[in-house]
């Protein structure tokens, strides 16, 4: 059969399309973004008109997807790991409502923090919500897991969490694609009260969820995604979760693995397989990408000594796995590698030449230096790179939207001035409610919404904020005279400085909107226009 060259994330997208989804709901975030982008580009998705527009944030995405499930159709939700914190309220409660149409929440974790603020492990959320979790080990399995996840969601009436990590998300391989299912017909839940989480009903629903746990475990035992491999050498048994399995096998590519192995790609853990392994083997090594979730679980509070992994130092406690770490854990001699020569300098990411955020920081530094350091709160986006030289303008970056509210809290504590720097998409993601708090209390903060009319850090997706920022601020109650829009280019430097100075001195909420389109987006749009013109000319 013909194979398609797909990234792990693309394999999931194709699997979801072939599972007959009627909608994907997502907010971009590395390494999850390309799932939605693949569906947006897909011919079948366009022909079927699958819902595929970006949501304002992960919470709105999760809720819309649950609405689609309520209406009986299949929906996919995608986000990066920290996005699940934003969607967590709905996510946790969706475990209690259960599903009608299949609903699969795909979360991409980023151990080693290649592009993230932390390396939280979404499997913990799966356990927290008490729902099944899938963790494919390769691209082919990612495709199959996606299809299967929708089946599982409908047969057991539960949302399913699909957890992947950076290396599978952004690695390509040949994938065999199977048959495509039709979309579900619209149909309401057979129990009209299923989704009403009033305490009396929620208690019943919660019992239902608890009663399903046994079925979830049974599914883990019986689907082909978890496998038991018998080995001759019983001195060690290995539990290899997700792509941890690949790093294990990499170390036995020329010979057979002598140890018994349980390959885990579906949770809750397949208890029978794990028990068998524990009974037969003297010691257990747990290989997992992320937190020592399983290791901690089976080792327990009593710290059984024959279980090794990230907790006892056999493997590093943090960071992603790799074949070399696993090699060392297996007790093989390690390669003495040639070091990287000293003259190789680190090359951190930087704001593009000509980026509008540069002009904003140049002006902001000039003004704020007259007050002293430590007074600029920022947020998450390309403009976070303003923390690095040559600007070193910002002092905080924590979670999306926190720049406004942290500036508010610092002002409440007496810090003056407190300035927030936030991007357009981050503002509509989670900045608006914080601004409302500040307006209601007339807190003297200055919010700079550095508007490049794009979600640039993740590749230039359409921003929900486009064309709406002034009216949103006005609607929230920011005074019109203190909503200042201007163009951040070097020749407007003095004007920008003057405006920042004025608004910093204003004893109320002010919003400054330096607006200039992202230069990468401008270049891409120009190229698209050229191609379109060339096509029209032919």
């Amino acid at each position: 059969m013909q194979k398609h060259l797909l990234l792990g994330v693309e394999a999931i997208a194709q699997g979801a399309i072939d599972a007959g989804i009627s909608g994907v709901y997502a907010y971009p975030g590395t390494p999850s973004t390309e799932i939605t982008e693949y569906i947006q580009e897909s011919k079948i998705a366009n022909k079927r008109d699958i819902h595929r527009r970006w949501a304002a944030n992960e919470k709105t995405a999760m809720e819309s997807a649950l609405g689609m499930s309520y209406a009986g159709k299949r929906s996919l939700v995608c986000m990066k790991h920290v996005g699940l914190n934003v969607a967590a309220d709905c996510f946790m409660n969706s475990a209690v409502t259960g599903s009608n149409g299949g609903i699969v929440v795909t979360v991409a974790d980023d151990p080693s923090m290649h592009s993230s603020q932390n390396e939280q492990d979404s499997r913990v959320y799966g356990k927290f919500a008490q729902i099944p979790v899938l963790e494919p080990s390769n691209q082919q399995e990612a495709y199959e897991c996606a299809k299967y996840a929708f089946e599982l969601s409908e047969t057991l009436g539960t949302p399913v969490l699909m957890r992947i990590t950076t290396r599978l998300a952004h690695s390509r391989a040949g994938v065999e694609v199977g048959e495509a299912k039709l979309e579900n017909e619209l149909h309401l839940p057979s129990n009209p009260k299923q989704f009403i989480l009033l305490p009396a009903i929620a208690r019943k629903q919660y019992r239902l969820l608890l009663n399903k746990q046994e079925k979830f475990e049974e599914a883990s035992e019986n689907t082909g995604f978890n496998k038991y491999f018998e080995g001759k050498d019983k001195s060690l048994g290995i539990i290899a979760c997700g792509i941890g399995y690949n790093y294990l096998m990499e170390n036995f590519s020329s010979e057979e693995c002598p140890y018994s192995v349980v390959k885990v790609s579906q949770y809750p853990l397949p208890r029978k397989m794990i028990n068998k392994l524990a009974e037969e083997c003297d010691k257990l090594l747990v290989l997992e990408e992320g937190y020592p979730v399983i290791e901690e679980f089976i080792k327990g509070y009593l710290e059984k000594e024959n279980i090794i992994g990230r907790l006892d130092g056999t493997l590093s406690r943090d960071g992603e796995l790799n074949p070399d770490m696993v090699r060392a854990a297996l007790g093989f001699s390690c390669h003495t590698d040639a070091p990287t020569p000293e003259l190789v300098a680190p090359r951190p990411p930087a704001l593009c030449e000509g980026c509008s955020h540069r002009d904003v920081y140049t002006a902001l530094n000039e003004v704020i230096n007259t007050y002293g350091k430590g007074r600029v709160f920022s947020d998450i986006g390309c403009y976070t790179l303003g923390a690095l030289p040559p600007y070193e303008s910002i002092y905080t970056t924590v979670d999306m939207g926190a720049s406004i509210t942290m500036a508010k809290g610092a002002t409440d504590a007496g810090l003056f001035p407190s300035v927030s720097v936030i991007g357009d998409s981050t503002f509509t993601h989670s900045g608006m409610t914080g601004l409302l708090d500040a307006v209601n209390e007339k807190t003297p903060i200055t919010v700079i919404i550095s508007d490049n009319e794009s979600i640039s850090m993740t590749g230039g997706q359409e921003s929900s904020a486009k064309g709406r920022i002034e009216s949103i601020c006005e609607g929230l109650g920011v005074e019109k005279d203190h909503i200042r829009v201007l163009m951040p280019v070097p020749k407007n430097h003095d004007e920008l400085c003057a405006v920042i100075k004025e608004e910093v001195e204003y004893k109320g909420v002010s919003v400054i909107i330096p607006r200039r389109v992202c230069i990468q987006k401008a270049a891409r749009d120009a190229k698209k226009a050229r191609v379109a013109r060339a096509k029209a000319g032919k």
Partner: protein
Amino acid sequence: MKTDIILAGVGGQGILSIAAALGKAALDNNLNMKQAETHGMSQRGGDVQSFMRISDEEIFSDLIPKKGADLILSVEPMECLRYLPYLKEGGYVVTNKTPFINIPNYPEIEELEASIKALPNYVLIDADKIAKEEVGNGRAFNFVMLGAASPFIDIPFEYLEDGIRALFLKKGEDIVNMNIKALHAGRKFAEDNK
């Protein structure tokens, strides 16, 4: 057969087009391949790498182990050195000569080239110049680089030509031919200078 390659460069230089042609070449000839790449923050002018693995046997890890790469193919001279811990004994470094300087502490060019020339197996090529002068289009430097690396990649050269053809099919005959010309120019240089 089995070839593990590290593709190296700076975000925005386009190493992924090289990976795409190689990937096509492998897949269309029923070889297994895995290719892990860098997306996200470092694409903003940071160092980026792609691990490319091609084999007629099953490939497990998406990452290449230390001392596992047969080849480091770098489109930037400092970046080729960053991945030396991954190079196999006897492996080759094929690197472009043109530096991409976007940091204040970029090493002295002479020192950098001396480090490269101290390696046991290397090809140092001015792919930008060859692309401009011999191919007639500076943008083809990526495929000059692939051509220069081709003698050290354990798959038939025709597969690479086919890969490029498949990749640029939609863009028309001229673009296909230009990039294949680049591939040949790079290969010739490597054959003469390895």
